[in-house]
C-alpha cells in the first residue's frame, strides 16, 4: 500500500493560481469553492516588503481532526493516506470544517448544479449538445466509486448540504495520474508520490530539501510538505483574496 504525499516547492511558486483553476475544472467545484487555494502574502513594510505565495490543498493529515470529529464516518482516511469524504453519508453538520485548522472544507450551500459559474440550464443548445449535463464540462470520473470501500468520493458536483474538499484527485491517482494541480503547474511547484518508495520524487525531494509542514504544532501530521521557505507567521498579510463573500 503506497503512502501518498505531496511536496510544494515555495521557492518556485509564482502565485498564478493555475492549479486552482485546474482543480476547479477537474472536480467541477462550484463557485467560491477552492479545494486548492493559493495564498498571496505580504510581509513587512515598504521598501522591505516581502511577497510570497503558498498553495493550500487539503493537507491529508495522518492525525486528521476532520476524520476524528466526523460523527458518521463520512470523512475517513484511506490506507494510502487520502482523506476523503463519502458524499452519500455526509449529514452536513460541518464539524469537519470547523475542526480543520487549514480551512480546506467547502459546504454545498446550494445544489452544486445551481452554484456553477454560468446558468446553462436555460440554454437549449448547450443542453442538447451536452446531454443536459451540468456543468457542461462535468467530469464523469467523479461519478464512479473508488477504493476497496467503493464509496462515492470524487468530484464536487453531487449533493447539496454536504461537505467537499480536495481529494488529491482520487479518481486520477487511481488511474496512475497525478492530481490535476500537480500535473498543470507551469513551474512544477508540486510533486506527488509514495513516501514508502525511497526512489519516488517526493522521497527524493524530502531528502534533499529543507521542508516544513503547515501548522505542524497542531499535531495533525499533514501529508503535504512545503519545501524551502518558512511557515506563514501571524504577521503575514493575505492580499488579493478570491471572490468568496455571500456566494455559496
Amino acid at each position, binding site marked *: 500500500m503506497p503512502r501518498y504525499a505531496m511536496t510544494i516547492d515555495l521557492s518556485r511558486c509564482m502565485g498564478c493560481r493555475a492549479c486552482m483553476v485546474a482543480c476547479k475544472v477537474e472536480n467541477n467545484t462550484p463557485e*467560491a*469553492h*477552492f479545494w486548492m*487555494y493559493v*495564498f498571496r*502574502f505580504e510581509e513587512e513594510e515598504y521598501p522591505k516588503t516581502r511577497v510570497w505565495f503558498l498553495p*493550500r490543498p487539503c493537507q491529508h493529515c495522518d492525525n486528521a*481532526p476532520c476524520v*476524528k*470529529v*466526523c*460523527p*458518521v*464516518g*463520512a470523512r475517513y482516511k484511506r490506507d494510502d493516506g487520502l482523506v476523503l469524504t463519502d458524499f452519500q*453519508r*455526509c*449529514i*452536513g*453538520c*460541518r*464539524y469537519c*470544517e*470547523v*475542526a*480543520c*485548522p*487549514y*480551512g*480546506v*472544507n*467547502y*459546504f*454545498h*450551500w*446550494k*445544489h452544486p448544479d*445551481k452554484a456553477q459559474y454560468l446558468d446553462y440550464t436555460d440554454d437549449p443548445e448547450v443542453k442538447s449538445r451536452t446531454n443536459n449535463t451540468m456543468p457542461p464540462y462535468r467530469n464523469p470520473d467523479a461519478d464512479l466509486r473508488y477504493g476497496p470501500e467503493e464509496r462515492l468520493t470524487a468530484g464536487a458536483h453531487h*449533493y*447539496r*448540504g*454536504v*461537505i467537499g474538499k480536495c481529494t488529491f484527485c482520487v479518481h486520477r491517482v487511481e488511474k496512475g495520474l497525478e492530481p490535476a494541480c500537480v500535473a498543470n503547474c507551469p513551474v512544477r511547484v508540486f510533486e506527488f508520490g509514495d513516501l514508502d518508495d525511497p526512489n519516488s520524487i517526493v522521497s527524493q525531494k524530502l531528502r534533499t530539501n529543507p521542508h516544513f509542514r*503547515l*501548522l505542524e504544532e*497542531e*499535531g*495533525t501530521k499533514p501529508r503535504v510538505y512545503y519545501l524551502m521557505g518558512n511557515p*506563514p507567521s*501571524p504577521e*503575514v*498579510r*493575505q492580499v488579493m*483574496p*478570491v471572490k*468568496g*463573500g*455571500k*456566494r*455559496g
Partner: protein
Amino acid sequence: MSGRAVALPYGVGRISLGWLALVAIAAALVGVGAFAYAIQELEGPIATGLRDWGTMGGATWGLYVSFIVYFVGVSFAGITVAALIRILGLTYLRPISRVAELLTIVSLILGALSVLADLGQPLRGIANLFRYARPQSPFFGTFTMVIAGYLFASLVYFYLAGRRDAYLMAQYPSPLRWLYRAWAAGYQDTPEEKARHERISFWLALGILPLLVIAHSTLGLVFGLMGGRPGWFSALQAPGFVVLAGVSGIGHIIVLAALLRWSLGLRDQPEMAAFRWLGQALLVLGIIYIYFTIVEMVTAGYAGREHEQRLAKLVLVGYYAPFFWTGMGALGLAIGLLASQALSGRWSIPLLVASGILANVTAVAKRLIIVVPSLTHGSLLPYGIGMYIPTWVEGAIIAGLMGLGALTILLFMKAFPIMEVPAPVEEVRP
C-alpha cells in the same frame, strides 16, 4: 358523565382569553418558523447567513449552533432542580419541579430541532447518526448523552413524578380522564407507592446528576477539543458549559415560576423560599461563571498564542466587544441585583425575574461569542477576516422554535397540572 362544574387545579381545562392570545402568538411564531424552514429547504442552506470560513469569509456555524447550545443549556435547570429536591430534600422547590422538568424536555426537543435546522442533510442526519455514529466524535456524546440519554431520562422522571397527579386528576370527570388513567397506570397513592416513588426518584436523580454533567461537558467538548480553533481550545470549555447551562436554566425557571405564580393567581406558590433558593443558586453560578470568564480571558490574553491573543482582543475591545460586554454586563447586573437581595435578605420576585432574563441575555450573547468569532476571526492561517450576519430565515426559525416551546408548555398546562397538586383531592373540593 355530565358535569358538575368542577374547577380542576391550576386552571387545567379552563380556556381563558389571555391563554388563547398567548397560544395564538406562539402558534404564529411556529408558523413563521415553519415558513422560514420551508424556504431553507427549498433554497438550501444558502438561505442562511452562514458560509464557509476561510476563503469564503463566513462563519460555518452560527445562530443554530448557538441555540443548540442555548436550548440544551436551558434544559439543565429542570432536571437539576428535580434531582436536588430528591437528593437534598429541598421540598419547597417541589411546586416548581414539574415546570422545571417540562422545561427540560421541551428545551431538549428544541435543541434537537435546532440540530436539524443546522444540518445540510437533516434526513440523513436522522438516519446516519443512528446507523454510523462514531464514539470518536464529540458529537457522539451530544447525540447519545444529550438527546437520547438526557431526554429519555427526563421523560422517565417526568412520567414517574406525574403519576400521582394523574391519579388525582383521574378522580375528576374530564375529557382527558383516559390520559390521566393511562399515565397513572394503576397508581393509587398508597404509602407503599409513595415510598417506592421516593426511593426510585432518589436513585434516578442520583443517576441523572452525573449524566447532566457529562451531557453539558460533552457539548463543551464539541468546542473545547478543537485544537486548531483559537477561542475554543480550552479545558475550561466543558465546566464553563455546565455552569452557563445552570445560569440560563435557573434564570428560565425563575421566570417561569414567577409567570405561573402570577398567571394562576397564586399567592404563595411557589413559595418565596423556592425563589430565594433559585436566586441564591443563580447568584453562585453567575459568580462562578464570571470567574471562569476572567480566567479564560486572562489565559488567552496573557499567555495565549498569538491567535488566541488576537481573538481575545477582538472579543474584549474589538468587533465583538458589544456582544461580549452586553452579555457580561447583563450578568454583572443580574449578580448585582441578586447580591443586593441576598445581603439585605429581602427577596423580590420582579427583581429575580429581571435577573433571570438578564442571565439568559448573557447565555445567548455568550454562546454567539463562543461560536462565531473563532470562525470569522480565529484562523491560524492568514485568511481574511470573515463576517456573519444571520438572515431573517435563521431568526425566524429560532423564533419559531421558541414559539414551539411556549406552545407546548401552554398546551400542557391546560391538560395537566403544571404544579404538583399540593393536597389530596378531597381537600380541594369545595
